[in-house]
């Protein structure tokens, strides 16, 4: 089940980042790209599991606004964002971002920016289970500092 169109996908289903990247490379808008950068975030091994929830409709809308900013700021040819919700185990892919641009720097920076946004500004909520106990994960100071880099 996928809850949005091609560019932004929020899904309770496991996904394969390599398949997604290969699919993205075949998009017509990527045909003239000189660079495609992708990032995959995995559930770290120290937890027993993660559960993510979101605000259907709102989360997608806010991510789309941010991604449109990235498209303009770095003159991207295309982007794709996949974010998991639901229950995940260690090493499951949790997020995938890809950006295509004529030159490498723009694609690197756009993916870095989008990831910083997702960590602390996108409407997701994360619970970690460790040793039988569940706790909410909230943004760290480093996450907020990372985001501030882009307001210069």
């Amino acid at each position, binding site marked *: 089940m996928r809850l949005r169109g091609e560019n932004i996908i929020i899904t309770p289903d496991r996904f394969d980042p390599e398949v997604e990247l290969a699919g993205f490379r075949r998009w017509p808008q990527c045909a003239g790209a000189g660079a495609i950068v992708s990032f995959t975030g995995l559930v770290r091994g120290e937890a027993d599991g993660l559960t993510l929830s979101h605000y259907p409709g709102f989360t997608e809308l806010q991510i789309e606004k941010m991604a449109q900013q990235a498209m303009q700021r770095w003159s991207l040819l295309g982007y794709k964002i996949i974010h998991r919700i639901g229950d995940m185990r260690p090493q499951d892919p949790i997020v995938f971002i890809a950006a295509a641009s004529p030159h490498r720097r723009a694609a690197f920076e756009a993916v870095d920016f989008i990831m910083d946004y997702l960590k602390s500004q*996108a409407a997701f909520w994360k619970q970690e289970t460790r040793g039988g106990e569940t706790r909410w994960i909230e943004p760290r100071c480093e996450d907020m500092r990372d985001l501030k880099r882009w307001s210069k």
Partner: protein
Amino acid sequence: MAVILFFGRLSELSAPLDIDLPKDIKTVDGLIIWLEENYPALKSGLKHKGNRIAVNHEIVDLKSLVSNKDEIAFMSPLSGG
């Protein structure tokens, strides 16, 4: 009928609410005071510094207007990726 949603840590304090707002509630601030009076479980959570509030999918502040047709969401600090 207004719909009031709670996300993240706040979802542990209350299920979603469908309520007829009293006519004297005009702002988010007023709504919070009314919710705290009528739903004591929410008292500890709604004014947390890192929370965000959205009315009809737009982020708003405490002085923003609310009406009986709105979807109002209270969100604890966000964390994705």
